[in-house]
């Protein structure tokens, strides 16, 4: 074989291998949109609900802003389960590179602590368009030192479908977990660049990965690092202009505490322009229990969901 032929054959092989590798990378990375709802069976008006939850990992602001269909999903849950309301408490886009890796999302609200652990068991591919994810989902409620598994299931969800799992808390309140695996096309659209997880950042020490804030030394509430407990809450003031305009919904903030548990930084992740500032002003006054990590008080980065609801005239 002449040198020209060899070079030509080598170049073509490299080209095809690169294309194949890119395609395999796409196939292994997948994202599931997670939403957590609180169901209300009776009329119980709460103008705002604040949820402190794990650092949304991985999360890009643009993803959450682009999320659609949440209001419709909430309506469907109400209709199917005969509820007065289904309020969104938290929303996250969870991405996996590695099958078998568990991602745990912890939510704290109204003195409750609920953890949602999702482990992909395998991905079933029918064609490049049709696939399904086999997932193990464990939802647990922690009360003091006691942990009760509310739901432990293994399900197969085809992409483009949404599974809504309903269950009751220890004291009988209904909660709903919605899981929607994104299609490869949606994944590419929402995640043009693959997000980096704590583990991939190469920081070791705690299972699930701890990423330190560059300047403050705060750690992200990911995996074993739980979001801190809220000890002082100030209700957000519903802006008059938002009331008049009939604007309601949830604002998600990324918040950072210092070693004493004071909020030192906030960043809007899911925005409602008329309500953002009210949420920031309230959250800035909150105080959390200092987080003790490796025996030392440390700042933590986590997310806060502030739910603004307008009073209904018929309530």
């Amino acid at each position, binding site marked *: 074989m002449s040198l*020209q*032929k060899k070079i*030509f054959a080598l*170049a*073509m092989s490299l*080209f*095809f291998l690169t*294309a194949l590798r890119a*395609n395999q990378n796409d196939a292994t990375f997948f994202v599931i949109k997670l939403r957590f709802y609180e*169901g209300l*069976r009776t009329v119980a008006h709460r103008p705002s609900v604040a949820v402190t939850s794990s650092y949304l990992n991985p999360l890009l602001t643009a993803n959450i802003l682009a999320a659609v269909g949440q209001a419709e*999903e909430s309506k*469907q*849950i109400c209709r*199917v*389960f*005969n*509820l007065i309301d289904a309020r969104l408490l938290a929303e996250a886009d969870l991405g996996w590179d590695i099958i078998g890796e568990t991602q745990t999302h912890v939510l704290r609200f109204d003195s409750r602590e609920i953890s949602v652990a999702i482990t992909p068991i395998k991905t*079933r591919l*029918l064609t*490049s*368009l*049709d*696939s*399904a994810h*086999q997932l*193990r989902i464990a939802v647990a409620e922690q009360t003091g030192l006691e942990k*009760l*598994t*509310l*739901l*432990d*299931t*293994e*399900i*197969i*969800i*085809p992409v*483009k*479908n*949404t*599974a*809504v*799992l*309903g*269950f*009751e808390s220890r004291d*009988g309140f*209904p909660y709903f977990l919605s899981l929607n695996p994104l*299609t*490869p*096309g949606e994944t*590419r659209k929402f995640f043009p660049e693959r997000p980096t997880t704590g583990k991939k950042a190469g920081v070791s020490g705690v299972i699930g990965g701890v990423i330190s804030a560059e300047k403050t030394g705060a750690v992200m509430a990911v995996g074993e690092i739980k979001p801190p407990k809220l000890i002082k809450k100030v209700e957000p003031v519903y802006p008059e202009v938002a009331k008049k305009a009939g604007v309601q919904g949830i604002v998600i903030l990324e918040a950072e505490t210092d070693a004493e548990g004071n909020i030192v930084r906030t960043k809007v992740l899911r925005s409602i322009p008329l309500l953002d500032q009210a949420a920031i002003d309230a959250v800035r006054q909150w105080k959390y229990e200092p987080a003790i990590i490796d025996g030392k008080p440390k700042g933590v980065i986590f997310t806060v969901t502030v739910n603004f609801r307008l009073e209904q005239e018929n309530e």
Partner: protein
Amino acid sequence: MKACKFYQSVFRYSPFLSLKDWAVRRHLERCGACNQKLASREELASLLSLANIYPGEELWTRVEAAWDKASATAYRPVSSGLKKRRWILAASSLSLLAALGLFYFFLLRSGPPSRPKATTLTFQILRFYVKDRPATPVIYKPFGSKMIFIWAPSPGNNP
């Protein structure tokens, strides 16, 4: 005549010697027009046997030379420029084909959003425990909806 031109192009622009040798020989043996142009079938036979001595590379050159009686036995070696052009053409054709294939593949992967596609991948529950005990889920799927609702019933309690 179109076939003749095609085989002439195969000869000129294909860098694969065995392929063009086979293609040109096959054409010469079957093409009446090419045969008529040559002085006799014997001449064709001699050209084909010559081609065994000078493999494929100059076969068509010799056939063309035989058509032009003035340079019946002239040997015209293939220029290095032509060789380069052949490789460039072959590489660009293959690259174009590969690019088209990949484009089609990725386009197909993105898929038209509205077209429903039949699938055998369905929702399944493989294991279901509520409060640490095996339970039977209550499942509801609205007709035509992509949503499925599963309720985990607590003992003696329904939503």
